[in-house]
């Protein structure tokens, strides 16, 4: 069954996607309107693997943990960093240090001040806590200097202009230092968050639901019109529409195939651009994929348009690179890179010495992409490649084991919800230790190209061409290949106003609920 909720959860299992929206301008804490009954919004989604950004293990968690945390920066609807907790920032001339200026009078949800020292303590915990999953991303930071209570400088290992993007995500979410005075305290954060986000904890039942209430100290509290947000695990996708119809939920993710039915039922549907890109992780370390011609043939053998039609009712667009159209990293010259060409696939296979029916591979797919796997199987058969499908149930750790840890999967139907920095994403997809680069190969050319991007200011005219160069090398050289980008699809009750559009992250600024 196609299941966007689970889909995004799993896609994200590999990645840390982070896109924060910036509401704009001045800080100050709004006041909660207490005149009438509290405004409650019931959201059916998934719960984070941990409410601690330091130990959260899937990228999809950004949607839920950023309910209770804020970062120094946020990404705007195009994916560019803009002010959040920090009102401005600047690099030194060589690009090896970045200084952030915090908004005045920031407070955590418990009322303790959020100052430069708190920012340093929070980021350093991410670098040093033994079980931190952010160590890699934060390794670019060499040391942190508190200049004054509102000014903090990050000294970098080398010039790196991606830091404002990087910190817009989970990596940069600021945790209240009062919550991690001791290691024992820190161990409680995964179930009892303390941050400076739009909401704060009221109650939380692991794997079941969380009740969050508005945080009056949130820097952009005036844009939050929801007094209580009830987050629960969404029901089976076949009953999502019924759940919203009956008021069991107000907002939920919707399978693309159910859009018409949801509209017919009188519900509202939002189709929101996202950074989600589906891809096939090909492990060229496993025979017969050790043959480069075979891998190339597979890239031409897949009819992505058909996959998109079956997987997402045709909503989205075919891409041959890990970014959606319109995003800064999307290189237009790759628009038809591996366009469907079964004849070419056949001749490549013949060159590689395989007669039709001789090549046999295993496809690994999560149960919600079983339909896509069945279609890929038929398409491969058309070019003479036999395959069997290994289905991994959704939520199963088998996926992590087989695809990322032991890397025993030859051809895995995977995907990414994107990352806040394009350089970070390229590292994940094509880098030598990249999770989705199951072959674990990367050419010196690619690494050099990536380094150049990192050292180029984002507003430099060279930035985009250099980024495209790195994308082009990655797409051409890596055995893994992209399939299609898809938008996020949400269904909501008519009493809930439209959700703001932000690439790959739910934000609730400006959302109102009427007639509760």
């Amino acid at each position, binding site marked *: 069954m196609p299941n966007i909720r689970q889909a995004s959860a799993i896609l994200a299992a590999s990645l840390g996607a982070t896109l924060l929206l910036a509401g704009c301008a001045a800080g100050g804490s709004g006041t909660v309107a207490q005149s009438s009954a509290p405004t409650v919004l019931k959201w059916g989604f998934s719960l984070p693997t941990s409410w601690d950004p330091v130990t959260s293990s899937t990228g999809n968690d950004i949607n839920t943990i950023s309910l209770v945390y804020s970062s120094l920066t946020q990404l705007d609807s195009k994916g560019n960093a803009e002010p959040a907790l920090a009102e401005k920032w600047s690099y030194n001339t060589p690009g090896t240090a970045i200084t952030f200026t915090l908004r005045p009078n920031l407070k955590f949800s418990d009322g303790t001040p959020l100052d430069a020292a708190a920012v340093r303590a929070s980021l350093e915990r991410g670098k040093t806590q033994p079980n931190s999953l952010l160590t890699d991303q934060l390794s670019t930071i060499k040391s942190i200097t508190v200049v004054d209570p509102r000014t903090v400088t990050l000294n970098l290992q080398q010039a790196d202009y991606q830091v404002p993007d990087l910190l817009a995500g989970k990596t940069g979410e600021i945790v209240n230092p009062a919550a991690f005075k001791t290691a024992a305290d820190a161990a409680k954060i995964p179930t009892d968050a303390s941050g400076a986000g739009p909401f704060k904890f009221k109650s939380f039942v692991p794997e079941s639901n969380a009740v969050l209430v508005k945080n009056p100290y949130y820097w952009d509290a005036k844009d939050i019109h929801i007094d209580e947000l009830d987050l629960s695990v969404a029901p089976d996708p076949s009953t999502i529409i019924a759940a919203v119809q009956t008021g069991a939920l107000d907002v939920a993710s919707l399978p693309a195939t159910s859009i018409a039915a949801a509209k017919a039922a009188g519900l509202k549907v939002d189709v929101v651009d996202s950074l989600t890109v589906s891809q096939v992780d090909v492990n060229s370390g496993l025979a017969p994929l050790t043959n480069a011609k075979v891998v190339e043939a597979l890239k031409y053998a897949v009819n992505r348009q*058909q996959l998109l039609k*079956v997987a997402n009712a045709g909503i989205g667009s075919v891409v041959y690179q890990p970014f959606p159209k319109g995003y800064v990293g999307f290189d237009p010259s790759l628009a038809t890179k591996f366009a469907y060409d079964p004849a070419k696939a056949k001749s490549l296979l013949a060159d590689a010495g395989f007669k039709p029916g001789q090549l046999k591979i295993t496809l690994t797919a999560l149960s919600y992409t079983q339909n896509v796997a069945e279609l890929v199987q038929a398409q491969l058969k058309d070019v003479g490649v036999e395959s069997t499908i290994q*289905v991994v149930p959704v939520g199963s750790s088998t996926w992590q084991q087989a695809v990322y840890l032991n890397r025993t999967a030859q051809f895995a139907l995977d995907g990414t919800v994107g990352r806040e920095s394009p350089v970070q994403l390229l590292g994940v997809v094509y880098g030598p230790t990249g999770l989705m680069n199951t072959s674990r190969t990367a050419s010196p050319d690619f690494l050099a190209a990536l380094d150049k991007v990192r050292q180029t200011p984002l507003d430099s005219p060279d930035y985009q061409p250099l980024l495209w160069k790195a994308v082009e090398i990655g797409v051409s050289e890596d055995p893994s290949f992209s399939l299609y980008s898809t938008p996020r699809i949400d269904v909501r009750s008519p009493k809930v106003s439209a959700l703001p559009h932000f690439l790959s992250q739910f934000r609730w600024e400006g959302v109102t609920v009427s007639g509760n």
Partner: protein
Amino acid sequence: MFSRALRSPLGAVSAVVIAIVVVVAIFGPVLAPYDPLKQDVAHLLAAPSAAHWLGTDYLGRDVLSRLLAGAPLSLLSAAEVVAIGMLLGVIPGLLSVYLGRVFEWVSLRVVDALITLPFLVFAIATTALLGNSLGPAMLVVGVLIAPGFFRVTRTAALAAATAPYVEAAQLVGASPWWVLRTHLLGKVAPAVAVSAASALGAALVIVSSLTFLGIGVQPPAPTWGGMLSDDLGYLFQQSYEPVFPAVLIIVTVGAFNGLADALRDASGTEARARSAGRRSRIIATKESSRVPA
């Protein structure tokens, strides 16, 4: 017993339905108008038409062909479950009556322990932990329904072993093999047959419940349970589509239950047999009542 059962209207109807299902299971793949795996992306989720009597599925495959082609695997997996359950239930059940008190005590406790396991959760947990494929799933469900067969066999064997005429036969020097063949098989076999019939229906429901939850599925091979769960993903586009596999499952399960009832009634004509039959009925329902609800 079988011929008597077939003379009752219930038995006759059930037998006819089962016969049709079995014929479909054997010849289904031949009868299918299309290749059940042949996809047609231009005609996804098409409504029933002259070309596709039951429409097409999410990959444009002919639903009728898939139902027909899915019959062997669906029924075979149910039969496999029942065969495993029978093997692991009937033999220890017989032995528990004849092998002495230690074996009796141990086998009873093992059976009791198996019965206390929360059925479906245990089946799912085991299958998921041991690697998600249909093989382990069948084995686990087979083990879990074995207590039903154990009970039925044991009760029938116990009744036979303690019957005065059997004790008399033993006294006059009948060999254990003779006793086993003549009396035991006569008593035990009908009871086991009744259980097997209802267990077949139960197994079909269990297997489809597991595949519904995504446990033990092996695409693209069609199974009724798998098709049903796939169709439910498209409930709002084609709300009638789940009806076809659902009706097939319900009718087949109903036929097996009906056959079990008819066999039970037929085995209970003579007084002693009736009480044994009633007894076995009560116990026979144990495994059908263990259908995950």
